């Protein structure tokens, strides 16, 4: 391995490609041959044998096996090479990707920063004017997931509490609006803050018993809570109308005017955009506050954290409740947007999706979560044409990110503080 590291130029790169992850080229050949053989064997029943039950004949498609073997043989080379390259460049990978460095550079320069913000804000504002209803709708659901991702990011990314039942709070917000609207005709704008407050309260109520647990145990219990909420919604028919759900939920009103579907979608888009800006604002301020630091410290070392005078229960509960606040709000928006909700919208799959957004995007990083949501929500939408392969591709992206960038697409950065004597003391870099 070492001599391949030192060699430079084309020859070295070629040798690295041919023997990546192995002592020698013959070893690499043997390894790839094994992989190819395994794949050929495993896919044999599906890809080679084709039984025709009507004519009672069996077709042996050996050419498929050959194709699989060849593809995996070369595929395994590429895979090993990517892994080896990652190993060599580990130090660099740990630091920053090119994109991240660019972002940092842009941010540190006031004019560039303003220009960058404008470059994001103008398309964001013009989007529903330029694109059609279908595209706007997809974008609204993407925005909802960004807000959910940022909310869960407080719990998982900042405070390090693995919550697999986050969708429960989303459901609480949505059902709260649906039911209040149905029975008392409460409007969207009244319900938005109420939904947020309800989310917070539910966060505290559910958080109190489970936050004694840690890691895997917490994950399992929150998963259970999420399912309990869904089952209650499904089976408490008198109140929630059971699996058939609640329909005809009012869309947000706009100064008493009647809006067409297209207009109200556009309106929804702007509401979500506003909510997203508010979320980013709040989360980024929280992240770099006394409380945000306490969350981070708690994530890193609970015992040291307590020994430094931080109240573990209070701090965790705060993270859990604040995370739930955003979910409650997003739930209200969701109900108002679709005008119909039922328990099927709040399954474990949704929780898993939001968690994936946070993990793949980069735990604790706002930009990362936004990138994660865009990739995980928009990519499957645009891949609808390849509907059979959609989930396969989705899975492949997730695996790739986890293998090659386990810290997420955009990792969180530490804030650099300015203190008395910033100038005289050379900073640590």
């Amino acid at each position, binding site marked *: 391995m070492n001599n391949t590291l030192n060699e430079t130029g084309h020859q070295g790169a070629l040798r690295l490609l041919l023997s990546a992850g192995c002592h020698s080229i013959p070893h690499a050949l043997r390894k790839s041959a094994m992989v190819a053989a395994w794949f050929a064997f495993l896919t044999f029943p599906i890809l080679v044998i084709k039984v025709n039950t009507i004519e009672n004949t069996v077709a042996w498609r050996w050419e498929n096996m050959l194709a699989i073997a060849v593809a995996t043989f070369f595929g395994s080379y590429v895979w090993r090479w990517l892994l080896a390259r990652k190993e060599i460049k580990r130090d660099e990978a740990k630091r920053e990707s090119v994109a991240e460095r660019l972002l940092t550079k842009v941010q540190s320069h006031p004019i560039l920063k303003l220009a960058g913000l404008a470059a994001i804000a103008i398309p964001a504002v013009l989007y529903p004017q330029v694109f059609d209803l279908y595209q706007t709708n997809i974008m609204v659901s993407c925005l909802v997931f960004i807000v959910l991702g940022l909310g869960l990011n407080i719990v998982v990314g900042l405070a390090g509490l693995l919550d697999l039942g986050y969708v429960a709070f989303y459901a609480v917000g949505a059902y709260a609006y649906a039911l209040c609207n149905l029975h008392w005709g409460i409007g969207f704008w009244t319900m938005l803050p109420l939904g947020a407050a309800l989310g917070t309260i539910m966060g505290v109520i559910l958080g109190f018993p489970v936050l004694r647990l840690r890691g895997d145990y917490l994950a399992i219990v929150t998963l259970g809570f999420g399912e309990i909420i869904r089952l209650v919604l499904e089976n408490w028919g008198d109140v929630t109308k059971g699996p058939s759900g609640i329909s005809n939920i009012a869309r947000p009103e706009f100064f008493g005017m009647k809006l067409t579907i297209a207009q109200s979608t556009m309106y929804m888009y702007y509401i979500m955009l506003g909510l997203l800006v508010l979320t980013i604002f709040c989360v980024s301020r*929280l992240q770099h506050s*006394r*409380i945000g630091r306490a969350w981070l410290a708690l994530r890193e070392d609970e015992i040291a954290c307590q020994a430094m005078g931080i109240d573990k229960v209070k701090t965790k509960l*705060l993270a859990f409740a604040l995370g739930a606040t955003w979910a409650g709000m997003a739930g209200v928006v969701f109900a108002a947007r679709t005008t119909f909700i039922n328990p099927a919208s709040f399954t474990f799959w949704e929780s898993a999706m939001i968690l994936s957004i946070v993990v793949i995007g980069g735990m604790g990083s706002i930009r990362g979560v936004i990138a994660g949501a865009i990739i995980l929500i928009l990519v499957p939408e645009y891949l609808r044409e390849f509907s059979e392969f959609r989930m396969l591709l989705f899975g492949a992206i997730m695996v790739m990110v986890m293998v090659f960038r386990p810290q997420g697409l955009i990792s969180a950065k530490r804030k650099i503080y300015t*203190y*008395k004597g910033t100038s005289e*003391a050379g*900073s640590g870099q």
Partner: protein
Amino acid sequence: MSNPVLNVKAVDKDFGGIRALDDVDLVVHQKEIVALIGPNGAGKTTFFNCITGIYAPTSGDVLVDPKATGDPVRVNGKKPNKVTELGMARTFQNIRLFPSMTALENVMIGTHCRTKSAVFGAITRCKATRNEEQAVIDRSYELLKLVGLDQYVNETSANMPYGKQRRLEIARALATDPFLLLLDEPAAGMNPQETHDLEKLIVDLRDRFDIAIMLIEHDMKMVMSMSDRIYVLDYGRMIADGTPREVAENPAVIKAYLGESDDD
């Protein structure tokens, strides 16, 4: 003699069938440097854990009296963060910094229990919050400078050399504004020069902040030269205490350290 700031009375700690601490008494007065020594596994770290709330003692009393007014507070059973709030801050034998946070942020965490800005302040970033935040940053930087880490301010603590990490832990503990600083083997893994510098630092901290310091240490040279009093723990029992000279001449201590077998 003045009232003790820390008064530990007849503390026992059992782990299942093992008695890790057995009827331990100890007092610390204001501005004293007290050392706790003993062979490996004697129960020194367990003692620290019992008085800082990480473990609850099986029986006995831990009394704390920050101002030495003669009106102590009983702390056993209190949570570690409450104990720290009362004014006992510690470091750990196996360094427990927050690895991905910068040195400055590590120290800033220490100020958490002395500051109070909450969610509302964090989001609105009102004047009070901004002032508090700047005060925290400045004080944390001062503390880093005091322990000689000013060139590491923005370095993540995991990337710092081992000896510097130990100093950072001390700065973090100091940020909690303690009246008693508890150091668990602060010189472990340091070379003689670093140990010597650390000794100077500890004495300097005591004089500068007028605090009491209690340390667990295996480096006898350091312990003997800097401590006002020494306690010796062996198999969970306090076998001796006194000035460095008294302890060094105590036959029970010599026996414990030489590991003499029972021949009678």
